């Protein structure tokens, strides 16, 4: 068990990839919010969020994603989310976010080839 969410940002073919490891909840979402806002501030409008190692995300984490997606929408930006686990996918489906500027992928290769 780790107490804090681990976040790393890297780039592949000029696309920023945010790797998240751990749990995104009412305790950790401010960290996630800070990092993603910085990426958007650097004028990136297509962002890959890698949730392969996210064990838990709830409406606070989805809230961060939704407001970030709103910010990039005017520039035709899309939030590209990698998530392999079925219970995480289910949360995205139930949330209704997939009807907005969101795309889900099973792995990183898929996401990168779709964006670039």
């Amino acid at each position: 068990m780790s107490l804090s969410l681990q976040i790393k940002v890297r780039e592949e073919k000029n696309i920023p990839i945010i790797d998240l490891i751990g749990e995104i909840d009412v305790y950790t979402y401010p960290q996630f919010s800070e990092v993603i806002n910085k990426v958007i501030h650097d004028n990136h409008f297509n962002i890959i969020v890698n949730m392969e190692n996210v064990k838990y995300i709830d409406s606070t984490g989805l809230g961060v994603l939704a407001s970030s997606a709103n910010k990039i929408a005017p520039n035709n930006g899309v939030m590209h989310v990698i998530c392999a686990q079925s219970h995480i996918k289910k949360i995205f489906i139930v949330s209704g976010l997939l009807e907005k500027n969101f795309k889900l992928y099973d792995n990183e290769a898929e996401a990168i080839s779709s964006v670039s």
Partner: protein
Amino acid sequence: MPNDNIVVSLKVPSLAKYGGIVRDAVYGVALRAGLSVEDSEDLRLAIGEAFTNAIQYSYEEERADKHVDIICNTANGQLEVIIKDYGRGFTEEDKPESNKVGIGLGITFMQSLMDDVRIESALGKGTSIYMIKKISPKL
């Protein structure tokens, strides 16, 4: 064992960082009560949402001196989980302002993932969320 009444209860301070302990404990109870992994994950999220609301809305800020109670009852083929806070409470007319990150999904998630959700809230007394998940016999 339909008449086996199992009770597990947990009390934590009204601080965001205790969410992980609450979710893991309820998830563990769910598995032991015979829920599938998938249903237990659903319960993990529903409980997480209820705990988040208790933290975000019951007091103006996080409070180490206040607490949240979580009670799990297994009986008659279902698991009931109750989350209780002792904060401001809310009614349709008198609600705390939705948190900036809140996107109105918390209660929606609970309702879509659980078999039944009942909310009891009284202004100045607090809020109790009753959630029920049926234990389906394993295939």
